[in-house]
């Protein structure tokens, strides 16, 4: 019997981060989907229904905090765990204020990132 892979949506405007996070999480047997722009992001999430959303807070052209607030306020998406990540000094506070379930600061430790994703993918 094959167990269905847990899905993670990673949203970041930095291609380097998207690439390395994909490698880290695919190695841990997650199904990874990435997005580098905010257009249509809610519809994509509603359609794809990931187990966890990993989202950067400060991106060019889209506001990570706004997206988190909308996800946490949306009927179809409010149950999805959202982990915010940021290279900003006050990232943790911003993450808490926007309603994210957890926060990971950049630069991150790859094992810590993977175990955080496992924790939330399991709970959802």
């Amino acid at each position, binding site marked *: 019997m094959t167990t269905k892979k847990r899905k993670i949506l990673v949203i970041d405007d930095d291609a*380097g981060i998207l690439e390395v996070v994909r490698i880290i999480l695919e190695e841990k047997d997650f199904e990874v989907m990435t997005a580098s722009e905010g257009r249509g992001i809610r519809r994509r999430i509603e359609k794809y229904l990931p187990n966890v959303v990993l989202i950067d807070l400060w991106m060019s052209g889209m506001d990570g905090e706004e997206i988190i607030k909308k996800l946490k306020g949306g009927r179809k998406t409010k149950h999805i765990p959202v982990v915010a990540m940021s*290279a900003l000094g*006050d990232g943790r*506070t911003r993450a808490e204020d926007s309603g994210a379930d957890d926060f990971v600061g950049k*630069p*991150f430790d790859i094992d810590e990132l993977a175990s955080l994703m496992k924790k939330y993918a399991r709970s959802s």
Partner: protein
Amino acid sequence: MDHSDKVKPRHQETQEPVPLLEQLMRAKQKAEQAAIESEQHASELDAVFTAMGDSLVVYDSSGKTVSANPTALRLLGFNPVGMERHDLGKRVSLRHRRGELIGPEDLPSTQALRGQTVTSKYIVIRNALGRDVMTVCTATPIRRRGKVVGAVVILHDVSESWLVEKEKDDFVAMAGHELRTPISTVKAFAQILEKHFQHTNDQLAKMYVQKMGGQLERLTHLVNELLDATKIGAEKLELHKEKFNLEELLRESADDFQKISAKHTIIVKGKLQTKINADKNRIGQVLINLFSNAVKYSPKSDKIIAKVKESCECVVVEVQDYGIGIPEADQKKIFDRFFRVDNKKGKRFPGLGLGLNISAEIIKRHGGKIWVKSTYGKGSVFSFSLPFKSKLK
């Protein structure tokens, strides 16, 4: 009853009594002269009051505005012509630098009316037009026969230099973000490579990539210090408090540090039962900073002793090294921003000179104290204390 004989004025030469009319004339002249002088004095004061570049507001004993100079009215967002002075306070609010409203009891005018003097306090004024003006405020009581009858508040507008400072802080915050992003990618790839070489059993390649990782940690640390220093400058250092055992954190931090610096052995002593309520990451940052200083400034020694103990309502941590020590004259400046100790040959040790300043600020914000005891040439003991019921400052 007539005492007039005793006091009756007489002509200087003839010693004849001065007639009453003449006396009255003289008194009148004197009074007129005094009035002219007083008027001159008042107009001089008025000119100073009007032309002053700083804002000046005068309050009566009930806290009502008696007068405000044109600079003050402009700063507070009012038209200097024909305004109701007692309305000043109603449309203006005073805030601390971090944005919170100043309560009525803590207003500079209220403090001055209580007889206290307020000097050089940073205050943000949200004026009647809704604009925020950063000021340095001084408030002094006006006393008459020892009794406080009013207060003078002087506001010096520092908005321009403040804006420059804010722009600089915003720039450093943005630069920090931009620097951390590629560091994140490089660090993650280095970790992936390390695992790969572990898997293929390529020890040499693994060692090289570990060295890369160590340097990346150093780079991250430098960027973090820059960002923390900016936050301290802008009073934006945030604390996320939780309950934890400081002894455990001290042992964990010593273990972690030991992994990246094997030359020195860190000996941890002491037991602690009670938990403290503090920002664990930030206190861990202070410990790592003290360890790394202890290592950096004791190149010829191989031992560091870290102790934890309880001491009346407080927990105290000491980090002792057997290094170069700090000359007495430098000990007072050691927690200042950018201050660094030179070695005997005048050579600078690497670093930005921010670590101890940041550590001191973290401890201060927890309501604790930090200090140093050092003998030049023999070594230093850095200590900090944290109250068990740590209050946010």
